[in-house]
């Protein structure tokens, strides 16, 4: 590719770092609040996977769609959501994106094209294909990106959605975040493939695997697939190989993997790798990086404080919240 690298462009490098740090600091804040008993429910953290949504969403327009997963904070932030409204949702506040009804697993910012996280593995896959169908029927050139985990490949919904999207050549990208495990099931063991993107061939669509901790590599693969979708050339499968640093959720004892394996992957920190590329390219200085980190830190601190101070979600109109109002 001849296009300039993200790390060589000060503006894009800065934006990329900001987004990745925003995701990481958001996740860390969630983890801390949860640990202190200030947050309800469960949580699925994407620490270690930040490069994927950051890079993919850089290839999208604001009016493009994404569908997200239970591990969806990163997707939501990368597509442009406001961390304060996200935090308010997680803290069960009236000002949260879903007025406290959805929480982490159902967080959505429809204004930025995020059709929602999903508590159902592969639940978003047909929905993304449907959004792509809608875009093509409405004659727009919008694209839908379906973020899903490796585990989703085991679901019937994934198969059916990809079959239909391929038949109708819909503008959708199936973006598989292969973080090596679906809860405790290793993706290598589950699917018996050294390269999960081999799956694509059986559906008659292009498939590619990339190093998901390499921001540039994810960006390039996503840009190609999104470009193809926008040009009316149909769906693709992009597999971004990455790793989940934390447990699957709060109850994970990590019995299915070794400490060494986790350490090996922590050494592949996508943020550190990108910072190194930026420094090597001489685009930003160490002081710049320090400053970006500080800015995001204080932004997140403010977001948490303001979210805390917001009014609690109210139960009084729950019954009226179930059906959309019928126009008079």
């Amino acid at each position, binding site marked *: 590719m001849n296009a300039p690298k993200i790390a060589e462009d000060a503006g894009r490098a800065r934006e990329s770092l900001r987004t990745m740090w925003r995701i990481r600091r958001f996740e860390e804040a969630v983890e801390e609040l949860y640990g202190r008993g200030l947050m309800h*429910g469960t949580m699925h953290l994407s620490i270690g996977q930040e490069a994927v949504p950051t890079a993919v969403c850089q290839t999208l327009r604001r009016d493009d769609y994404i569908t997200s997963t239970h591990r969806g904070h990163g997707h939501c932030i990368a597509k442009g959501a406001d961390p304060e409204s996200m935090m308010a949702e997680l803290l069960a506040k009236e000002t949260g994106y879903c007025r406290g009804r*959805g929480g982490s697993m159902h967080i959505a910012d429809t204004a930025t094209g995020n059709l929602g996280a999903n508590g159902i593995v592969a639940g978003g896959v047909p929905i993304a294909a449907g959004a792509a169908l809608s875009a093509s029927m409405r004659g727009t050139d919008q694209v839908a990106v379906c973020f899903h985990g490796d585990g989703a490949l085991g679901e019937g919904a994934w198969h059916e959605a990809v079959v239909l999207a391929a038949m109708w050549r819909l503008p959708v990208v199936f973006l598989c975040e292969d973080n090596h495990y679906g809860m405790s099931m290793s993706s290598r063991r589950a699917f018996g493939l050294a390269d999960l993107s081999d799956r694509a061939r059986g559906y008659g669509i292009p498939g590619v695997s990339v190093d998901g901790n390499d921001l540039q590599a994810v960006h390039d693969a996503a840009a190609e697939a999104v470009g193809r979708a926008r040009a009316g050339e149909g769906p693709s499968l992009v597999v971004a190989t990455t790793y989940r640093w934390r447990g699957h959720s709060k109850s994970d004892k990590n019995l*299915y993997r070794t400490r060494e394996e986790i350490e090996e992957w922590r050494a592949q920190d996508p943020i550190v790798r990108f910072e190194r590329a930026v420094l090597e390219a001489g685009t930003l200085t160490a002081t710049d990086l320090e400053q970006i980190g500080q800015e995001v830190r204080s932004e997140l601190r403010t977001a948490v404080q303001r979210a805390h101070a917001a009014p609690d979600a109210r139960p009084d109109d729950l019954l009226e919240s179930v059906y959309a109002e019928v126009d008079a």
Partner: protein
Amino acid sequence: MSEMTYAEAVRSALAIAMEQDERVFLMGEDVGTYGGAFGVTGDLIHRMGAQRIRDTTISELGIVGMGVGAAMTGMRPVVEIQFSDFSAQAMDQIANQAAKIHFMLGGAVSVPLVIRAPGGSGTGAAAQHSQSLEAWFTHVPGLKVVMPATADDAKGLLLAAIDDPNPVVVLEHKLLYRTSGPVREGAERTPLGVAAVPRRGTDLTIVATGVQVSRSLEAAEQLAQEGIEATVVDPRTLKPLDEETIAAEAIATGRVLLVQEAVRTLGFMSEVAALLSEGEAFVHLKAPIRRLTGLDVPIPYAPQLERAVVPQVEDIVAAAQTLVREW
């Protein structure tokens, strides 16, 4: 008797069934090394081996369907749906296959399959991980449905379900897993189709399922302090239902409060109300039958909202007071 948690009781039943019958095996997501999403299977994989404690991919339709096929051909599978909400993925195999095959094939085969699935709210897991879906299963002829409310029944009903030649859906409640109680030793079964009456009173009869059984018992203690004595009936098996016991206990007090966590419309307790209205009990009732149910809404995330949509102890107390004082 020995004291154990509800989760341990389920595990104990699984281990006993597997020791007694080599046809019994388990399939599900993360039931092996991980020990189950709620720790129910625990160390079973180390005791029984990976052939019999089978970790699957995330494929609910496949899991249940393979259970159906294995059950039709000489095995006694127990499958776990990680959250009962995901039975939606598997519903074809549950409702169209497992439930109907014995009937459709003129009785030539049976489907001795057990489907275990945790349900219920109270964990902040929101709308897709918190439902009480017993009415879905009870609505399908061919399925048996049980809802253990105590550790002893978690063990005894599961053992009976595994013995049964029909598909049995066992709905466990997430909030109960960590509660404990006395559990009978050995391989004692709790027969399917027999209700329990853990408390007897004279003023009203509370019929409750799942987590609402312990809430009703707690409410009954509070009511007793103000002189209201409640009977509590736990049907335990929803299908086949012990209508006789429910009717007899309703007649004995003349006032009936039906308590379920599930949403109101066409819930299991609607059926109980209908049965009581159609039967002999009707003429003995001093008051209209009263239902106390979850609101007709998806389970919200926020703790204050989640609490507000399902019956709590204080709601049961208040409903019972009204019923007794006004009638």
